[in-house]
């Protein structure tokens, strides 16, 4: 609580809102990188109160053991992961994990994945009756055989998934888009049409790494999702493209993909992101969030801007 009050006093210009949620900071911790919200609090100096929101690990209806090792591998300026949505299942998350979260510290967003349209609807319905602040629909996971990116790469399937979730919950819905598709802006439009309140841009890109002495893929599942600074320029362009559509509907974006510095965060906001997601970079520097908070707050004051909103989408094209 102490750091919460210090935070909000220190950086008043970082307070913002996203899909109707009041956030202390424009930083969102990304799904799959911070477990169920408690893991990083083991590190001295880290506090959930320093971020605006936390997206919890991808949750499916039934428990999943996930993929065979190796599940992670470092690549140039990034990493591959193929966790395979290991999670204890919707009921266990609702009954065992949600009650243990300190909902005063920050906003918590559940990230959901289904293997059918109906399953997405069912998970959304179950979370509708909980204290969770919002639901992020993951239609872009590259690491599971059924569902995931199979939905995200087809705008009509994306529409159906968002539509069924919309009918099953009154919580804010954020749809997480895949970069592994040709026209992300069209996909964003269909998700907005179906009632998505926000968009998360982008999930990981599919990639591979090969162990040359064994001539085998390093990742147990052969391929994985690429994240980290390597994908930043791609993510930035996708945010820019999606923003051209979403701004007309005033649908906000969580910009993400390789953000590791203050500059990166500012670039995403200028491109059209209302808030910025941090995942992989936390593995390098668990105390990064406060540096980004401070850097963005300083940038706003130096540039005579009152709040993050004033910077969103302020890109001037050549």
């Amino acid at each position, binding site marked *: 609580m102490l750091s919460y009050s210090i935070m909000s006093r220190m950086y008043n210009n970082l307070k913002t809102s996203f899909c109707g949620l009041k956030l202390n900071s424009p930083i969102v911790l990304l799904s*799959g990188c911070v477990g169920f919200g408690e893991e990083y609090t083991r590190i001295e100096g880290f506090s959930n109160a320093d971020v605006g929101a936390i997206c919890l690990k991808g949750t499916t209806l039934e428990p999943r053991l996930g993929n065979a090792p190796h599940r992670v591998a470092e690549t140039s300026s990034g990493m591959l992961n193929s*966790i395979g949505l290991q999670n204890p299942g919707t009921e266990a998350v609702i009954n065992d994990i949600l009650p243990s979260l300190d909902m005063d510290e920050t906003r918590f967003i559940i990230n959901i994945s289904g293997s059918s349209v109906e399953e997405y609807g069912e998970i959304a319905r179950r979370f509708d009756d909980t204290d969770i602040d919002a639901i992020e629909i993951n239609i872009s996971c590259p690491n599971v055989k059924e569902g995931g990116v199979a939905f995200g790469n087809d705008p009509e399937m994306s529409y159906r998934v968002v539509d069924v979730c919309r009918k099953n919950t009154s919580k804010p819905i954020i749809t997480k888009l895949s970069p592994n598709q040709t026209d992300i802006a069209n996909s964003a439009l269909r998700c907005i049409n179906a009632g998505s309140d926000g968009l998360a841009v982008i999930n990981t890109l599919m990639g591979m790494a090969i162990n040359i002495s064994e001539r085998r893929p390093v990742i147990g599942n052969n391929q994985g999702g690429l994240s980290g600074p390597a994908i930043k320029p791609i993510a930035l362009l996708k945010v820019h493209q999606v923003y051209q559509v979403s701004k007309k509907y005033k649908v906000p974006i969580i910009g993400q993909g390789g953000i590791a510095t203050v500059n990166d965060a500012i670039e995403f906001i200028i491109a059209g992101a209302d808030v910025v997601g941090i995942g992989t970079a936390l593995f390098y520097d668990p105390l990064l969030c406060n540096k980004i908070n401070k850097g963005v707050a300083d940038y706003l004051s130096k540039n005579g801007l009152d709040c993050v909103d004033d910077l969103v989408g302020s890109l001037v094209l050549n």
Partner: protein
Amino acid sequence: MCDCQILAHYQYDGDQFILTLDSSEIAKSTIPGQFVHVTVSDSIPMRRPISVMSVDIDNGTFDLLYKVVGEGTKKLSESKIGDILSVIGPIGNGFELTDKKLPLLIGGGVGMPPIIAIAQKIKDTDCDPFVILGSEVPFPFTPEHSNIGPECDEVSHTMPLLEEWGVACRLTSLQGFEGVYKGYVTDLAKAYLDTLSKNELSKVEVFACGPHPMLEAVAKLSVDYNLPCQISLEEFMACAVGGCAGCTVEVQTERGSAMKRVCVDGPVFDARSIF
């Protein structure tokens, strides 16, 4: 998480290094089997997990022993005295030291450090440990003749640090080094166990860290002799705080198979739950 200064950095044959870092916090709080997650270089963002080998609480320092196997450890080997490394730790559950009075400690290759850490922890207790260290490259220390433990002309050498601590230790290798048992760690372990009485065997608990095939052989030996056995595992890691589920291994539990995180649920597991 803290910034630690490099106080010493020695190279041994076989591309092996011993690194001394300053941190009284880590020296004080580490239990055997725990590790640290280290930034090896500015040019390599992801951290590398390395076990704590020994601590010096009085001087507020701790030692790591590592082998260069790829780009990350290569960069680490280029770091100099006075350089600062960012360190998260100590991490992990560590070994559970029980009341068994005859711990058998087995370390293979760069699996030696957590085993040496146990020896340091129990050297002044009433336990009577026996350490077996195996290596197929030259040992990361100069083996010397031992005056502690079983007497045997061919198998007479030990690690000087363990000798200094008064802990009995013998070495194994297939390479035919002087004073070193020619064979696998499990061969020597079996020979040692066969010298014990039934009563003595009931006081043995096995602790092991090393390559996967070695751990499998140690686990089997423990089953054959009906001994409890704790093993320390390795897996690729990203966060090392339990947040990414990147480092899991399959573990058998009472409720069936489960995927456990090596970083925070381990790295130490009951051998019978793994093999």
